[in-house]
């Protein structure tokens, strides 16, 4: 890095300091960080190298020409990135975007008059045409740095956006020593965005007036400018830029870089790495050829420098154009070049160029025997990867040796330490400044980062883990899909020793077996438990001594235990593939269960539909020949085939299948067959899987939507098929319905047998547009299971530390959708993990599995499974289950009880150690988020080891520090305990950055706690309320001096006296009232007597209205045949009197006599003038009782 203050620059100036080495990637990043106000990369940047380089370099905060650091952006998505930067540029900021990959997002209207610069790393060399952006091509690191400045200059002068293409493939690039980064030079060359300048051209004067800002702010204006006009001026600005740059730095560039073209007969035009290779080998090529060969490298390809090229090519014998496209017509310079001259094209694909081949083909090309060469002159067909192989700077460091603290006593650090003395106050101030700024000034302390330390808490947890893994994954066993092997062995021991106490040898043998099994499990080959068990037994027995009878006993014990093994399955240890296997198996199991009957039904339907199509009888007109051919020749003469044929034709009245029906059946057959494999392929779960990777997340979502569409069509076909087979499909009624069939029309039964969709996503590769698309899918209630694999607990943008990872956000969002099963878990406990997954798969609806699988390519000293456990205990990745199927009560659906010590902020454990005096002390140590980060190698800069002599009394453990309020914590320092190599206990101070992160994580955990303990909270509140009510009741009773019963008695007696006409004398005791009552009791007897009379009168009342005991009617039609207007049947075909006036009393009596059930009651005659009434009444008498 150069110090500021150098005014002139010339080629000959010697720089005394050692020039650092760079490659294009870091060169670009370093330059942009110094000269831009807003820099960024895309969040879903596919290139690992770019991302890593960005992370490392941007952290260093190099000085900047504005004396303020640039705003760092990480935009999501390709096109939103462009839009964002265009927006920044239009608001007057100098902005640049860095990206890589073959899909360059260009060509948008938003780009007009937005002077920003895009750097694009394009190893494939496949340029894209950019009519509204100018393009420069840089082929070395120096050029990369220089062209960034030149591009900014040009962009700001011409107000057109610029694209700088870098085509290096980093395996081949040497790190160059760069001459750059002089801030003064940059400032002079570029100027500041707010400077007022004169509008450099006519067109700009027209739009902006005479003067404008270097980067104008037209965010509030709406201008429509013709980009074509502006682009036309770019070459002049380029010339200007190059001249100025050369004057300032001494490095001069030209529109076209030329090597030996003046004297050459043949000119080869190439860009980027192709040019580099040619330049290297030019001498050799020239030697081996008759003609003189020159090279040309266009620095600017858009707008294409036609005149410059034609000047160079004037009079040359042959022009050869090297393109990276296999069909060079797509190469942007191709068409422009074709307008100028005839040339021969070489298509060079990725990989190393074979010199010999190139030379031969070159000769043929020069001879002119063929106009276009389409061959692949690469030797190794290396895959064109979008990965730029960028070596991270620290790769050479060896992996740290893991620290073993099992079973050893941990001693506190001893106080004897030689060294410079420092006063307590100074010490504290230094430590505090480190805490606040994260930087140390004391050289003594500077070396105390990144030592091989481990959180003290971890010495405990290892025991827990050994009990959880390895596990046995047993197929087709939904109760014990995953069971830890050690648990199985423990159960056997308990069962066996229950009956036979004191059988220690059994226990010992089995413990030995447990250890042996664990050691035998290796990740490469997956073995069954039974096989592994046998092998372990063999090896144990072979190792045992044969003299004492213990060997026989051991054999017997082990065999007994073997017989008790209830389940068998594959033995898995913890590795990143474990969660995927569990998911795979649970999907398979659940799906097989669901479709056990359906697959048969489906096949039946398909066969029946084919039968319908085959029944098209009109197609089967049997001809004479057909008949004849089906009979053996010996009998042919004796049969009259013509008549046969006639009979068949006559009897089958041609019933052609209606065209519409035929078409319909064919279509539904096609739709059914489309998804048929999903139902019959019970063993293959890959048909349900969709994977989302770096570049294709949007495509995958498209695929899922296509599958949903196919599923809807399948069920539509299914229902139509069922109707067709019953011949119940009526076009008038059903067409209308089925034509509008959509996902909403799936019935409840359909939903149960919808094939699940498994979407595997790695959280690194998602952006918010895809998130939105997935959330939309989740709102339908189709069984879409999203498996979100997290390799990291913390969001990669550690520059925004207070944000939770977006996957946690996603989990919360899914819970808010109410019908999504959400399961978040690190894979520390295999059994519990499998349980959560299985329930999610069984759930008939969408599910989200948020899984922490541990970092890829683990570079820390902590093994995978331990990291998982740490993530859970430090609340970095708490386990939570939201199961909508459990209950309609929200509190019961949400469960955080699988987290250890979920009532506490952090997991606490008693930690014992030997203090410096040799006494054993213990402390309740919490595993906080800070401890979790302490084990993460990315945060080594944030943890400062403090030797004993610098310990200060104001240091508190982090767990306590976090509980202090800001006033109390002002002069306190937090620290954590870590263990070192010799089992020494040390203290380490975290920076405030890390403590802030811990606080925000704690916040999230607390909100989860509140939600999860909602049920308990509610019951507690209800209890309180009840108690409160009881208390009030008791108080009232005491005050009023009466019990409830007495009060009741009083009220009732008051009422009675009032009713019976007595006088109520208010009294406070019951006796006076009862005396009163006695006096008033007389009337009751009278009332009683009156009641009896009424009852008698009722009995004497006769049946007046005719009626029928309808319920006893036997529907014999007798009465309805007599008079159907009077007697009618109800809906159950039982008779009742519909209209008593519709017939005569005679008919009523007749019906009553005829009724075999004797349920007609004629009653009294309505019409007194009917003849013969007396006789009729007499006849009716027996029926009227």
């Amino acid at each position, binding site marked *: 890095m150069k110090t500021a203050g150098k005014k002139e620059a010339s080629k000959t100036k010697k720089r005394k300091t050692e020039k650092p080495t760079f490659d294009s990637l870091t060169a670009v990043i370093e330059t942009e960080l110094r000269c831009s106000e807003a820099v960024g990369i895309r969040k879903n940047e596919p290139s690992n190298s770019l991302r890593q380089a960005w992370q490392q370099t941007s952290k260093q905060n190099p000085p900047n020409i504005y004396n303020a650091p640039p705003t760092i952006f990480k935009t999501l998505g390709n096109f939103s990135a462009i839009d964002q930067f265009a927006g920044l540029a239009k608001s007057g900021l100098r902005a640049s975007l860095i990206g890589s990959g073959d899909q360059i997002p260009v060509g948008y209207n938003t780009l007009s008059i937005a002077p920003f610069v895009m750097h694009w790393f394009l190893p494939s060399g496949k340029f894209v045409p950019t009519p509204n952006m100018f393009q420069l091509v840089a082929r070395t690191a120096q050029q990369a740095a220089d062209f960034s400045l030149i591009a900014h200059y040009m962009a700001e002068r011409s107000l057109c956006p610029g694209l700088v293409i870098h085509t290096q493939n980093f395996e081949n690039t040497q790190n160059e020593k760069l001459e750059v980064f002089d801030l003064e030079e940059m400032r002079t060359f570029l100027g500041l965005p707010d400077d007022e300048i004169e509008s450099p051209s006519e067109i700009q004067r027209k739009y902006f007036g005479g003067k404008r800002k270097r980067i104008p702010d037209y965010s509030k204006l709406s201008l429509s400018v013709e980009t074509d006009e502006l682009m036309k001026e770019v070459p002049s600005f380029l010339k200007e830029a190059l001249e100025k740059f050369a004057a300032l730095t001494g490095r001069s560039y030209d529109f076209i870089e030329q090597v030996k073209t003046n004297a050459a007969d043949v000119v080869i035009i190439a860009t980027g790495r192709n040019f580099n290779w040619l330049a290297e080998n030019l001498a050799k090529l020239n030697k081996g050829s008759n003609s003189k060969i020159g090279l040309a490298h266009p620095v600017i390809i858009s707008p294409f420098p036609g005149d410059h090229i034609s000047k160079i090519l004037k009079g040359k014998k042959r022009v050869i154009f090297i393109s990276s496209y296999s069909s060079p017509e797509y190469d942007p310079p191709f068409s422009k070049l074709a307008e100028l001259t005839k040339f021969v094209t070489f298509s060079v694909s990725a990989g190393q160029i074979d010199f010999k081949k190139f030379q031969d083909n070159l000769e043929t090309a020069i001879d002119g025997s063929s106009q276009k060469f389409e061959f692949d002159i690469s030797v190794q067909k290396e895959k064109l990867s979008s990965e730029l192989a960028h070596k991270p700077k620290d790769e050479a460091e060896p992996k740290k040796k893991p620290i073993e603290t099992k079973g050893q006593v941990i001693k506190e650090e001893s106080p004897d330490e030689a060294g410079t003395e420092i006063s307590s106050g100074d010490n504290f101030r230094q430590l505090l400044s480190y805490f606040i700024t994260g930087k140390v000034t004391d050289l003594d302390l500077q070396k105390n980062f990144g030592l091989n330390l481990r959180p003290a808490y971890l010495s405990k947890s290892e025991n827990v883990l050994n009990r959880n893994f390895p596990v046995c994954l047993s197929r087709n066993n939904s109760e014990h899909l995953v069971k830890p092997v050690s648990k199985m062995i423990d159960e056997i021991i308990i069962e066996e020793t229950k009956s036979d106490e004191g059988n220690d040898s059994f226990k010992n043998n089995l413990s030995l077996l447990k250890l042996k099994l664990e050691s035998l499990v290796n990740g490469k080959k997956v073995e069954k438990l039974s096989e592994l068990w046998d092998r372990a037994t063999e090896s144990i027995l072979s190792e045992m001594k044969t003299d004492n009878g213990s060997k026989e006993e051991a054999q017997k014990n082990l065999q007994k235990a073997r017989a008790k093994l209830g389940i068998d399955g594959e033995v898995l240890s913890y590795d990143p593939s474990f969660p995927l296997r569990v998911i795979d198996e649970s999907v398979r199991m659940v799906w097989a269960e669901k479709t056990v009957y359906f697959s048969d039904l489906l096949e039946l339907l398909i066969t029946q539909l084919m039968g319908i199509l085959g029944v098209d009888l009109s197609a089967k007109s049997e001809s004479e020949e057909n008949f004849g051919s089906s009979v*053996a020749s010996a009998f042919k003469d004796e049969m009259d085939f013509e008549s046969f044929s006639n009979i068949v034709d006559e009897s089958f009245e041609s019933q052609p299948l209606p065209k519409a029906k035929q078409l319909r059946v064919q279509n539904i057959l096609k739709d059914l067959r489309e998804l048929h494999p999903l139902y019959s392929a019970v063993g293959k779960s890959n048909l349900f899987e969709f994977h989302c990777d770096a570049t294709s997340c949007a495509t995958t979502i498209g695929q899922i939507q296509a599958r949903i569409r196919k599923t809807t069509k399948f069920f539509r076909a299914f229902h139509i098929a069922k109707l067709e087979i019953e011949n119940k499909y009526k076009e008038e009624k059903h067409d209308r319905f089925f034509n509008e069939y959509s996902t909403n029309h799936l019935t409840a039964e359909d*939903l149960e047998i919808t094939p699940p969709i498994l979407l595997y996503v790695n959280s690194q590769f998602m952006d918010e547009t895809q998130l939105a698309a997935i959330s939309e899918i989740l709102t339908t209630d189709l069984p879409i299971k999203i498996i979100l694999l997290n390799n990291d607990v913390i969001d990669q943008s550690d520059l925004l530390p207070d944000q939770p990872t977006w996957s946690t956000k996603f989990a919360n969002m899914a819970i808010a959708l109410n019908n999504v099963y959400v399961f978040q878990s690190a894979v520390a406990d295999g059994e519990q993990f499998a349980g959560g997954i299985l329930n999610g798969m069984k759930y008939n609806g969408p599910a989200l599995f948020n899984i922490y699988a541990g970092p890829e390519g683990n570079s820390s000293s902590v093994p995978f499974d331990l990291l998982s456990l740490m993530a859970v205990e430090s609340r970095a990745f708490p386990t939570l289950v939201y199961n909508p199927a459990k209950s309609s009560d929200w509190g019961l659906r949400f469960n955080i009880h699988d987290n250890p010590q979920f009532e506490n902020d952090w997991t606490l454990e008693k930690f014992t150690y030997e203090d410096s005096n040799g006494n054993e002390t213990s402390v309740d140590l919490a595993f906080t988020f800070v401890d979790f980060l302490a084990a993460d190698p990315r945060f080594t800069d944030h943890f400062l080891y403090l030797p004993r002599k610098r310990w200060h009394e104001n240091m508190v453990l982090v767990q306590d520090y976090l509980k202090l309020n800001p006033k109390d914590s002002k002069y306190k320092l937090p620290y954590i305990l870590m263990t070192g190599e010799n089992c020494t206990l040390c203290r380490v101070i975290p920076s405030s950055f890390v403590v802030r992160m811990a606080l925000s994580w704690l916040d999230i955990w607390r909100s989860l706690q509140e939600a999860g303990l909602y049920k308990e909270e509610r019951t507690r509140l209800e209890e309180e309320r009840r108690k409160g009510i009881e208390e009030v009741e008791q108080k009232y009773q005491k005050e009023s001096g009466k019990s409830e019963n007495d009060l009741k008695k009083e009220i009732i007696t008051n009422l009675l006296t009032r009713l019976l006409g007595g006088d109520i004398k208010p009294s406070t005791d019951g006796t006076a009232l009862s005396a009163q009552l006695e006096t008033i009791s007389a009337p009751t007897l009278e009332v009683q007597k009156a009641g009896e009379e009424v009852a008698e009168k009722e009995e004497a009342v006769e049946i007046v209205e005719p009626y029928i005991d309808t*319920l006893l009617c036997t529907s*014999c039609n007798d009465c309805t045949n007599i008079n159907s207007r009077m007697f009618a049947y109800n809906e159950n075909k039982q008779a009742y009197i519909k209209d008593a006036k519709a017939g005569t009393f005679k008919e009523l009596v007749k019906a009553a006599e005829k009724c075999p059930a004797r349920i007609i009651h004629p009653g009294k005659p309505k019409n007194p003038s009917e003849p013969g009434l007396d006789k009729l009444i007499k006849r009716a008498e027996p029926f009227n009782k």
Partner: protein
Amino acid sequence: MYRYSEDVLIDLERKPYSMEDYQSAEPRWCPGCGDNSILTAVQRLCRDEQIPLEKAVFVSGIGCSSRFPHYMKTYGFHSLHGRALPIAQGIKIRRPDLHVFVNMGDGDCCSIGTAHWIHAIRYNMNMVAIVHDNEIYGLTKMQVSPTSPQGLKTSTTPYGSYLKPLNILSTTLGVTNASFVANGVEWIPDLLYKTIREAFHHKGFSFIRIMQRCPHYLPTLFDPMITDPNKILLLSHEKGIQADDVLKRIYKNVEEHDPSNLNRAREIVSMEGKIPVGVLYRNEEIPTYDDLRKNTQFFSPEMREKALNKEFDKFAINTVDSEVVDSEDSR
């Protein structure tokens, strides 16, 4: 999210069936004949279950009862005397999707059709068999049937019938695989309907014997039972028929009989003097013959053709196909 059930889809815009939809012709039975009651009960069942007309078939033998299929608008088969059951079984095997009902008289079932009756019970195919027991041969103008009371004077027994009547229920309960046996009386329409409904829902051979009046030839036969409610033993149970309070007030003899208790059922039917009404025995576990013999594969027309051709080729050489099939016995 709300999802409706599949049935809604199929029933789109279909009008529900009413009882009249099932009536094809006005019954010509004698006024007061118990068959009317049974007809009403069956029509009510069809209406309540909304059985599509093309999905039911009534098979009968010969007799007054066997006029039944003529008055139902479904499929029907008025067959030979005593042979209703084998025909019904054949229908069920060939068309397992149809609901099969069998209507027999007492003579039809217990006299000429005895052999079929016993084996039908054992086969336990899923159908409802109703015996219209009026204890007489009515259509042929009054002859004695196996269930006629002892001493009845008819044209074939001018001096009175000599033998005690056959106990249908105990015979049925004595046959292996009996899975549903019930007794009903046609003058309590509510109970009758419930019995037939239980029989319909039972998976297996549901045998109901319904005591019905013949108003022409034996008008007073059942009078004692009709007028004296104590002669009826009401079998009430949640697994059988749950009698409501009204009935329990009228028919005071109520027994809580668990239909799975076979021994008690046998005891009840052997009791003299009391007529049990309700579900006597019920067992859903007994496998049905149609299930046992169900085709697991569906043979498509092509497969059938292929199989047939293969058999035929044993007798004649088919020269149409490209490969000449050589057979073992070609002459």
